């Protein structure tokens, strides 16, 4: 019972740091994220450049905190759109049952037999690279697991006493579904959403690393890692800074997710 609070606290602190830096970058960055300076190439971390500079003399700290917002934006929009789609599918599938349930679940099964990365790669190949493509690509990879969770919760409440009573009172199916069952899926969905966010950030970073996510000149953590790879011997900070940001964000979200699961389930 008491378990979970500690994880939640650690997670909130870590995620809080990342969020604070990201919000800070909206108002202030020490340098412009794309400002190049030939005289300041490969500078080691110092007071003038907190995390040093890269091969173009760009300030790593500014790029890292600036790049966070796109990664986070992609992750949030992915999880939000995925939650909406999965809620609709899961509620219908669980509540209607029968052939509809069968069709939806078999499609979900078929999609989830592909590894996540491959689905994302298919979507990116098929649609042209655009800022929205990465959201669509990641969204499809997460729909199966989200749908299953909503469906399970719906099934559980469909046969509950209070739902039977509501039906006796003549409440319409749509109202039962939206007003009475859907809110009950939230506790289950909550930890899934948090873990989904961390997975989305990881996936976005991987796609950007491969050059298939957020496109330059906008900096993103994955892209920065890819650029830092070739200069890692001369400027290891160029890789460590964005990499550490990813690790802190993911660990923070995972801890929150674990804490929530222990608290609510």
């Amino acid at each position: 019972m008491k378990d979970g609070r500690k994880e939640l606290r650690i997670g909130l602190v870590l995620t809080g740091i990342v969020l604070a830096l990201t919000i800070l970058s909206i108002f202030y960055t020490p340098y412009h994220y794309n400002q190049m300076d030939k005289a300041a190439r490969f500078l080691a971390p110092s007071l003038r450049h907190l995390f040093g500079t890269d091969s173009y003399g760009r300030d790593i700290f500014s790029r890292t905190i600036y790049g966070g917002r796109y990664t986070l934006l992609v992750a949030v929009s992915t999880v939000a759109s995925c939650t909406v789609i999965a809620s609709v599918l899961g509620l219908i599938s669980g509540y209607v049952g029968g052939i509809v349930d069968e069709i939806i679940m078999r499609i979900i099964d078929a999609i989830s037999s592909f590894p996540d990365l491959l689905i994302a790669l298919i979507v990116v190949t098929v649609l042209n690279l655009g800022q929205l493509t990465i959201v669509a690509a990641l969204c499809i990879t997460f729909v199966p697991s989200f749908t299953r969770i909503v469906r399970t919760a719906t099934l559980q409440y469909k046969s509950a006493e209070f739902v039977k009573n509501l039906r006796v009172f003549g409440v319409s199916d749509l109202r039962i579904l939206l007003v009475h069952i859907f809110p009950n899926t939230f506790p289950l969905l909550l930890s899934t959403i948090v873990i989904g966010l961390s997975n989305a950030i990881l996936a976005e970073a991987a796609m950007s690393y491969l050059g298939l996510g957020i496109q330059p000149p906008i900096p993103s953590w994955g892209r920065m890692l890819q650029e830092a790879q070739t200069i890692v011997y001369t400027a290891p900070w160029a890789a460590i800074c964005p990499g550490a940001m990813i690790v802190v964000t993911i660990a923070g979200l995972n801890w929150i997710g674990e804490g929530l699961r222990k608290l609510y389930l």
Partner: protein
Amino acid sequence: MKYFLRKTLVLVLTIFSISLLTFFAFHIIPGDPASLILGTNATEEQVAALQEQLGTNRPLSEQYISWITGFVRGDFGSSIRYRMPVSELLKGRLPVTLSLGLIALVMILAAGIPLGILAARWRGKPGEKILNILTMLGISVPNFFLCILIMWIFGLILHLFTPGDYVSYTRSLPRFLQSLFWPALSIAIPQTAILVKYIRTAMLEELGEDYVRTARGKGAGETWILYGHVLKNAIVAVVPLIGMILASVLSGSIIIEQVYGIPGMGKLLIGAVTSRDFPLTQTLVIYITVIIVVTNFLVDIVIQVIDPRIRLSGRS
């Protein structure tokens, strides 16, 4: 036997739906492969001729049937980018990726199982906290970042290996395996952390079971309970994970091959995606997915043999 037949049927249906989904994913899109191959300054006649040759002007269902029969016979079509048969490009790639995946899998199991047991034994001790933090770090590190760190620390600072130094298995098998060691390690570490977490949870759950109480009541020592009873059941709970781990290992190798410049299927795939080479992407996607689905099928069969409860209770 009935279980086996049902599983086989599911396997066949899954592979069928994989082929169907992949095919239609690549054919519902606007934009026509013929004009893609020929570029923007091709005449309409040229495009029409190539459409005829590729068969893209026929109805979708017909295209699917001719594509799938070709696929079964080993004819995967031609790559748009390399202008050569896909089967030619695939040659020699599969063993590379599979070896990389297999080495990573062995590492994961060899490190994950003992560490998981240790984590369960350390419950409530100070070592548990450290291990918990380490597993959380392991889960949170993207494999490509880990890869860069490994390259930097072990390759460039300690000079244990030369990054980008790849030896083909046709030249020297031991040196081939050696060159895959560090890439495999980058894939293995995050997955090991996940496995440790699962084994720990599974063992702690088993420790709360009635049979453990009975064994304690009969005077069995803690060591015997842990290794004689609990471990066996915990392993059974973990075997289904192997399929999932393999999927992550193969996804991981797609990225890691890119980092280390290993000429496997992953590197080919990323190249195909960036150049929008539909036939090549399509074939690789199906290849990798089928490997995973078949492994999952084999894992299911193995579990059923070692744990008859699954067959008897009919759950899958």
